[in-house]
C-alpha cells in the first residue's frame, strides 16, 4: 500500500476571524510537508482565505511600518503551501464554492485556486483516503 495519501479538507471560516483557519492551514501544511496530496473545498466564508486582494498594513499601535510588520495574509499561506507541494512531490487542489464566491464578490483568488461546486466535495470524499470537515461555529 502506498504511503502517499489523499486527504480532503472542507473549510468554512473566513480569514482573520478565528484560529480555526490558521489551524486548518497548519494541518494542510503538515500533510504537504509529509508528501500527501491534499484537496481543499472552501465553503462559505472560507472562499476569502485565498482571496488575492488581501493586503498588508502598518501597525501604528506597535510603531511598525508596513514593510517592518510582516503582516500575515492567508492568501500568501495558501500560495506558500502550494509552492511547497511542488518541492515535496505532493499535489494541492483547492476549489472555492462558486456560489459562495459570487455571494461575496470574491472572484479573484491566488493562482492554483479554481471554482467548483458541492459536487466536487462529493467526488473528493469518494476518492480520498479521508475527509475532514472543519465547520464554522
Amino acid at each position, binding site marked *: 500500500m502506498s504511503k502517499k495519501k489523499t486527504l480532503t479538507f472542507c473549510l468554512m471560516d473566513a480569514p482573520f476571524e478565528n*484560529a480555526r483557519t490558521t489551524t486548518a492551514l497548519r494541518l494542510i501544511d503538515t500533510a504537504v510537508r509529509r508528501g500527501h496530496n491534499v484537496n481543499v473545498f472552501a465553503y462559505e466564508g472560507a472562499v476569502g482565505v485565498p482571496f488575492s486582494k488581501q493586503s498588508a498594513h502598518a501597525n501604528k*499601535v506597535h510603531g511598525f511600518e508596513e514593510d517592518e510588520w*510582516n503582516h*500575515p495574509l*492567508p492568501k*500568501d499561506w495558501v500560495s506558500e503551501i502550494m509552492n511547497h507541494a511542488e518541492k515535496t512531490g505532493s499535489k494541492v487542489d483547492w476549489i472555492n464554492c462558486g456560489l459562495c464566491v459570487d455571494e461575496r464578490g470574491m472572484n479573484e483568488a491566488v493562482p492554483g485556486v479554481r471554482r467548483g461546486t458541492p459536487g466536487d466535495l462529493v467526488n473528493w470524499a469518494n476518492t480520498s483516503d479521508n475527509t475532514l470537515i472543519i465547520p464554522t461555529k
Partner: protein
Amino acid sequence: MAKTLNIIESAYRATIEEQDDTIVWITHAMKGAGADLSVLLRGNAVNYCVTGQKAPEISFGEWQQTHAAQIDQDLIALMGKGVPVYVAEEDLAKRGISLSELISGVKTVNREGILDLIENHDRIWHW
C-alpha cells in the same frame, strides 16, 4: 468625558493572523484618539494577563511569522498609556491561575467589584 469599560471575554480568537488581540488593539487605538477607557478581562480572556506567554513560531512553506502577538506586553503598554486593566478574580480561580502569575499592575476584581466598575463607567462595551 464619558468613561467606557471594555469587557473582553473572547480570547485568542484571531491572534495569529492579526498579530494582536483585536480588542486590545482597538483599545490602544481609541485611547490614542482621546477616549477614556478601562478594560475588564473575564472568561478565557483572563489568561491574557499571565506573564511570559509567547505565541509559538509558525510557518507555512518558506514563510515565517515574525512579530507574533505578545498580549501580556500589549496590556502592560496599555496600562502605561493610562488605561486601567482589571481581571475577574473568579475566572482566574476557575482556571487555576494564581496571582503570582499575573503581569504587574493589573487589578483583580470580584463579582461585587465588577458591579462597582459597571456603575462607575458611562458606557459598557462587551466584546
